[in-house]
């Protein structure tokens, strides 16, 4: 289970643009302390008289000890909430709840890990890479996006990873194509023991398929629309197969967002599989 989350009203330290993304560093000691790689935060958007009720979820990109503890978020403007965030300036305040979710599990022994990031999904991989390297693991990166400006963290990946492979759909940087086009090669070359992935659902599905092919474990961090982020609203569910072989509609926010890839029924996301526990006409009903 996650570290016990807290709510803090933090001060924005810096804002910057990184290609297609915005990065926001916020002073949030209570959150920073407890964060482990893969955690996310729920951010209140819109200010005091806003019409936007739900917090927005963002992966925690970086944690620094400055000012008692800061967290950095990396995001792209998608709708009114992220537009509001992009307008924040230094010294504004930001209301965060975190850290939320289950972080990435780490291997007990040193091994070789391929970290796959799609678009801003790579944001959560650098803290993970750090933790893995501290355990003596070898790291290789595969980062992909539709275009060069949407590949996040290529430089940092090059610094940290043994190898870094980039893909873009328009070929504007790295190989033209998708991460799944190059992943088999990387796994084979590095003789990877495990794959970690964060990015769009379709990518996670593809990455999982590749890992299954190579018969190595894969940990994926999924993204589902969330109303609460703390496990009480049941809106963020997806079908996941349990240890007992039974498919349940589990919460991405507290049972995830990190799952073993092969347990997620990607094909059935957005449905209630007929054989899920409690499905209409299905098991136990």
């Amino acid at each position, binding site marked *: 289970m996650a570290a016990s*989350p807290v709510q803090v009203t933090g001060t924005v330290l810096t804002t910057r643009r990184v290609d297609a993304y915005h990065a926001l560093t916020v002073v949030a000691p209570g959150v920073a302390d407890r964060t482990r790689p893969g955690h996310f935060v729920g951010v*209140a958007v819109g200010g005091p008289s806003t019409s936007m009720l*739900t*917090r927005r979820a963002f992966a925690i990109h970086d944690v620094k000890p400055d000012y008692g503890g800061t967290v950095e978020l990396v995001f792209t403007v998608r709708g009114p909430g992220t537009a509001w965030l992009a307008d924040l300036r230094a010294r504004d305040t930001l209301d965060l709840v975190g850290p939320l979710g289950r972080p990435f599990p780490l291997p007990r022994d040193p091994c070789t890990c391929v970290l796959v990031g799609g678009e801003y999904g790579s944001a959560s991989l650098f803290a993970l890479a750090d933790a893995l390297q501290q355990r003596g693991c070898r790291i290789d990166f595969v980062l992909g996006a539709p275009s060069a400006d949407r590949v996040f963290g290529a430089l940092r990946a090059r610094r940290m990873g043994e190898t870094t492979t980039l893909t873009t759909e328009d070929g504007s940087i790295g190989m033209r194509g998708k991460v799944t086009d190059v992943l088999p090669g990387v796994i084979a070359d590095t003789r990877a023991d495990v794959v970690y992935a964060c990015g769009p659902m379709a990518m996670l599905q593809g990455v999982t398929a590749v890992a299954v092919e190579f018969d190595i474990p894969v940990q994926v961090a999924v993204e589902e629309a969330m109303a609460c982020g*703390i496990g009480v*609203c049941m809106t963020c569910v997806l079908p996941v197969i349990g240890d007992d072989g039974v498919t*349940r509609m589990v919460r991405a926010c*507290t049972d995830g967002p990190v799952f073993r890839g092969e347990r997620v029924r990607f094909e059935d996301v957005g449905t*209630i599989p007929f054989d899920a*526990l409690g499905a209409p006409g299905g098991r136990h009903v």
Partner: protein
Amino acid sequence: MLTASGCGGTGRELAQFFDVTRLGAFVTRSITMAPRAGRPTPRMAETPSGLLNAVGLQGPGVEAFLTQELPWLAERGARTVVSIGGGTVAEYTALARRLADAPGVTAVEVNLSCPNIEDRGRVFARDGSSAAEVVASVRAATRYDVPVIAKLASDVADIVAVARSCVDGGADALAMINTPVGMSVDVDSMRPALAAGTGGLSGPAIRPIAVRCVWQVHAALPGVPIIGMGGVTSGRDALEFVLAGACAVAVGSALFHDPYACPRIQRELEELLTERGFDRLADAVGLAHHPPGSGPRGRTDLEESSL
């Protein structure tokens, strides 16, 4: 201060943030006989000052509830209101019986916003007589010292009539309102934003409708305890319900934004009551119905129409 059904998880999630035994009561999501996987996703869509949800009563079923969820609450001494939902009068009755000898049930709340399978899916809460039938049989199946609360929805032409039927059927208290049915269409995909099409609208957007329901029912049935809810996010919102006639207030969607909402709102409400010179909450209940002065602005000629 109560949690609203379906908005507080199993209690464990909120316990990370505050002591759930300090709640007026923890209200469970609506428990069903069998486990339910609920509706497909997307299950939520944000709307202006509101939230649409179509969770579809996902839950583990009453047996798992009694073995895995209720004991946790009971052990800690949390007052627990168990909400129940069913598709037939018989199902509600069976649920009430199943709860009757479970320790730690402070009250039973009957979620009447479920489709009645025997009436072409018409929601119980929209039909006074079938609502009353459910309430009466749940009342009969429940221990005499455990109150039965009827939870009503605002999607009716005459909320007072439904409330009266439920009270006549034996409801000890009323909870209102459950979410009005709403819908949102995604103009990019050009499809309904929720997989289920329609969903329940909650949050501050519906507060004026909820306050109006509480006001009307309190005016008509002043002796019946009302649990008010719908868009409560602050002590001021809670006080609005109290002044309109609620003797307790429940917090739903606000928990999604602020996990500490219940203790915070409780504290804010107490401060507001003290500022206004009330010793007890009870003294403020329904006060907006009785103007202190009697100037022309104080007249209470409340026609029910918007015109």
